[in-house]
C-alpha cells in the first residue's frame, strides 16, 4: 500500500487538527497514512517518501511556525535531491496579514526547487473567513484523492 506522510507545522494546533482531518479523509481509500510534526522529521527521510502532505500555518510576520523552522533551515542547508517525491500542500493563515499564508508558499517553493513534484492545488485556509479549517481540509483532500488513484 502506498504510504502517505502527513507532515505538519503548527503554533497553536490548528494545523495539527487539519493533519488529523486529512488522515481521516484518507481512511478507507487504499492508502496507509503516517502523521508527524515537522519537528520530528529528518530532512534525510524526505527523499524516501513517495507522497508527503505538508500542512503549515504562518506565524509572526510571515514566518513558519517556530517548531517547523529548523526543518526548513535543514532542508535549505542539505538540499537533498527530491526527484520522485510527490507532495501536496495545505496552508493556514489569516488574510488580514500581507504575508497571508507565506509559510506554505515558502515550503512549497523549496520542495519544487529541490525537484519534488506537487499534486493538486495549494489550499490556503483563511482564519478571517467563515469556513472552518476542517471543512476545507475535507473538501481539499477529496479533490486530492481524485488525482492520486490508490
Amino acid at each position, binding site marked *: 500500500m502506498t504510504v502517505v506522510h502527513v507532515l505538519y507545522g*503548527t503554533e*497553536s*494546533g490548528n494545523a*495539527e*487538527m487539519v493533519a488529523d482531518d486529512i488522515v481521516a479523509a484518507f481512511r478507507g481509500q487504499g492508502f496507509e497514512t503516517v502523521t508527524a510534526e515537522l519537528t520530528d522529521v529528518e530532512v534525510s527521510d524526505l527523499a524516501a517518501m513517495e507522497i508527503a502532505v505538508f500542512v503549515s500555518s504562518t*506565524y*509572526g*510576520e510571515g514566518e513558519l511556525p517556530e517548531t517547523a523552522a529548523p526543518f526548513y533551515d535543514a532542508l535549505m542547508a542539505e538540499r537533498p535531491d527530491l526527484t520522485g517525491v510527490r507532495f501536496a500542500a495545505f496552508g493556514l493563515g489569516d488574510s488580514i496579514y500581507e504575508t497571508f499564508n507565506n509559510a506554505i508558499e515558502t515550503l512549497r517553493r523549496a520542495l519544487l526547487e529541490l525537484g519534488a513534484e506537487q499534486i493538486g492545488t495549494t489550499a490556503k485556509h483563511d482564519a478571517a473567513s*467563515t469556513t472552518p479549517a476542517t471543512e476545507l481540509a475535507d473538501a481539499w483532500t477529496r479533490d486530492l484523492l481524485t488525482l492520486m488513484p490508490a
Partner: protein
Amino acid sequence: MSLTIEDASAMFPWNDEGFRADPYPAYERARAIAPVHRTTENTYVVLNHADTMHNAKLPCMRIAEPPSFAAAGEHPHPWTAFDNTVLSKDAPEHTRMRRLTNRWLTPKMIGTWARLTHDFTVETLDKLAPGEVVDAHFDLGVMPTHLTMCRILDMPVGDVEGMFWALWDAMLINATAPGEGIHARSLAGMNFMFAETERYVREKQSAEEPGNGLVDELLAAHGRGELTWREVLETTVLLYMSGGPNPAYLIGAGFKLFAERPDLMAEFREKPEIREAFVNELARLNPVELIITRFPNEDIEIQDVRIPAGSCIKYPIGAANRDPAVFENPNNFDHNRPPEASRNLTFGLGTHACAGQLLARAETSVILGLIAERYSSVELAGEPLEVRTDRLVAFDKLPVRLS
C-alpha cells in the same frame, strides 16, 4: 453628517448607570447618525461590524498605549503590572509571549481540559439536594472553570472569591472615566492578585519535584534564562485569573437564557450538533469585555473619517455584535444564523484574539450540556445581580434552582 465633539461625546455617557446596564439603544442611535464618531480631541468610536472586523485587527492597530495617553495624576497605572505579557505587547514581542501558551490550548488539548470541567461540574451537581438553590455564577461558572485552569497551570486552587473580586477591582481603572478612589482600589486589587500568585509560584519553584503544568514550563524557561521573573509571574497571573471569571459570565448568561427560554434548553439537550453555534450566539449577545481599544501607529481612514496616528479608537464590542446590517433582529437569540452572520467580536480578533477562547467555548458547552441533560428546567431563585463598568461586566450572584 458631522457632529461637534461635544455632541458626539454626549451620545456615549460611559459612566451613566442606565447606559452601562443597556448601552445598545445608545449604540443604535449613534450608528444611525454615523458609523464613526469623534468623541474627544483624539478619541474615535467605531460602531459598525464591517469596519470593526476589518480595522481592529490591522497590524497598525497597536495595543500599547502611546505615552500621550498616560493618565495624568496618579502613578503607576495598575495595569503596567502586565507590561510583560501579551496584553501590552505588539509583534514581535507579542509573538514570543503568545508562544508560551500555544501548545497548551490547541484544539486537541481542549478536549482533555473540557473533560476536567465536566468532572468538576458533576461533583458539584451531585452534592446538590433536590430543590436546593445554587449560585450558577460562582459554583457552576467560576469554580469548575477555575479548577480546570488550575490543572492546566498546576497551581493550587487558592482564594477563589478573594481573587475574583481583586480582579474586578483591578479592572475598574479601565473604565473610560474611572471615578475618585478607583486608582487606589484598582492598585490594591492588582497587588493582592500578584502577591497571592507569587507566593504559589515561589512554592512551586522551591518544591523538590517540579509539577507538570504550564507554570512549571515557564519556571523551567526562567531557569534556562529564557524568561525573566516578571515574565513568568505576569503570564501566570494573567492565566490564573482569566480561567474562571471570563467564561463564568458566558456560562451565567446561558443559565439565564435556559431559565427564560425552556424551549432553547430543550433544543440544547436534544441537538448536540447545534451546541457550538449556540454558544457562539450566546457569546455574541453577552460579551464580557465591552470595548476593544487600539492606537493606530499610522494615519488611517475609516468611512471617510481621517484618524491620525496616535489616536485612541474604541470599538464597542456590543455595537459590532448587534449591527443590523449583519444581524437580522440583532437583539434576538438565534443560533441558526448563517456563518457569515455569526462572526462576532466577543473574543476579540486578529493577533490579539483571546488565546483561551476555544477553552471558554468548550467549557460553556460542557457545563450547559450537563445542565440540559440532567435537569428539565432552570428557575431563577432571585434577581440576578451584575456589576458593570463601561468596559466590563460580571455576575455577582445568580441564584438558580435546578429541577
